[in-house]
């Protein structure tokens, strides 16, 4: 079972949901936690993991040998990302645009292209509260987060209950975190802004065929547009977290809700039961 906690809008409470869910379920399920928000991972604040291993994630960048290059432009023609350009008698490689696929090297008729490794970031692995914890850390200045997320996902044990904290937004990194999940929990707030970005996130999850459940955070502010949208679209609202000072205080001190209040543990457990029952009913999961 693989659950990705995502949101279109940033700052809606993804990490609150992902960390509390992991803590509420870890006693009865083989939880694995993955912080896929590699540009700004923050689940460690609540789970306080002990990091035992760190490894580098690299991409391969093309380098062109001017002696062998005939400036034929085949490499530039093959590149989907315009990461290599032949302008006159100059070949320019745009390292930030390169996805490291190696196609330019394959199509080069004179063997002028070699590849050099370039570190994008690191994967840290360890243990948090008795369950495996992994997170990706993108190096400052790097633009490409998805290779780190794919590397994190490679560590998923199919027998485990994997909980993935996704990056915000609806771009490639978010899609990478959602793809392959059995369920996407989309966290939103009941405001026009929240609804706007929720719609985008729903579109992403549906486009990759992942069932959706919605969690409303800061319930009590805004309006009822999110609930009406979910009703129209047939999307279950699995949990509402009220807009309360005490919840904000706990968050600001890095204290998980489930640690402070036993009722929250029950609510997150119930959320999981409801969500999985719904999936079974729809025939998605055994």
């Amino acid at each position: 079972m693989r659950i990705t906690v995502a949101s279109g809008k940033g700052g809606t409470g993804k990490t609150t949901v992902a960390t509390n869910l992991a803590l509420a379920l870890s006693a009865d399920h083989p939880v694995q936690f993955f912080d896929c928000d590699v540009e700004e991972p923050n689940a460690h604040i609540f789970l306080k993991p002990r990091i035992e291993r760190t490894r580098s994630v690299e991409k391969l960048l093309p380098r062109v040998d001017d002696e062998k290059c005939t400036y034929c432009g085949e490499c530039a023609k093959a590149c989907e990302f315009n990461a290599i350009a032949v302008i006159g008698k100059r070949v320019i490689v745009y390292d930030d645009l390169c996805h490291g696929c190696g196609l330019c090297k394959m199509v080069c008729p004179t063997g002028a292209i070699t590849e050099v490794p370039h570190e994008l970031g690191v994967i840290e692995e360890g243990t948090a509260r008795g369950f495996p914890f992994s997170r990706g850390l993108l190096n400052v200045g790097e633009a490409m987060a998805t290779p780190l997320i794919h590397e994190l996902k490679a560590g998923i044990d199919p027998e485990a209950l994997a909980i993935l904290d996704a990056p915000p937004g609806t771009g490639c990194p978010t899609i990478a975190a959602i793809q392959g999940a059995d369920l996407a929990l989309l966290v939103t707030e009941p405001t026009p802004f929240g609804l706007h970005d929720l719609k985008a996130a729903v579109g992403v999850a549906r486009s990759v065929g992942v069932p959706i459940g919605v969690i409303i955070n800061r319930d009590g502010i805004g309006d009822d547009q999110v609930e009406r949208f979910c009703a129209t679209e047939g999307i279950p609202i699995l949990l509402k977290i009220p807009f309360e000072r005490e919840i904000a205080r706990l968050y600001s001190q890095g204290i998980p809700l489930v640690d402070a209040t036993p009722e929250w543990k029950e609510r997150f457990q119930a959320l999981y039961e409801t969500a999985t029952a719904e999936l079974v009913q729809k025939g998605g999961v055994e």
Partner: protein
Amino acid sequence: MKLCITAKGPTLNDEVDPSFGRATYFLFYDPETKELKAVPNDPGAHGAGVQAARIVAENGADAVITGSVGPNAHQGLTAAGVKIYTGAQGTVADAIAAYAAGTLSAADGPSGKGHGR
């Protein structure tokens, strides 16, 4: 001397498109012969600036007149020996007049962070 002006339409009366890589049209104009060629731009999802720089170079322009140029496009245009003039406004005809009058600023570095920022 051949100019390339980024434009929102194919004629000299159309507005200058402030974006270089994602401009709607590239207008190639020779001030001496008054010859005009409009090339529609079809940027892909990635590397629009790189692609645009290549189109400009392939059409033999000596200078680009546009709103702003990102770092990738700047590198490509510079490699091709194309001069870059940014901050152009109004119609394409206005921009050409401003270029002729010497009031456009030559960019010695990228004017944005890319992606039109």
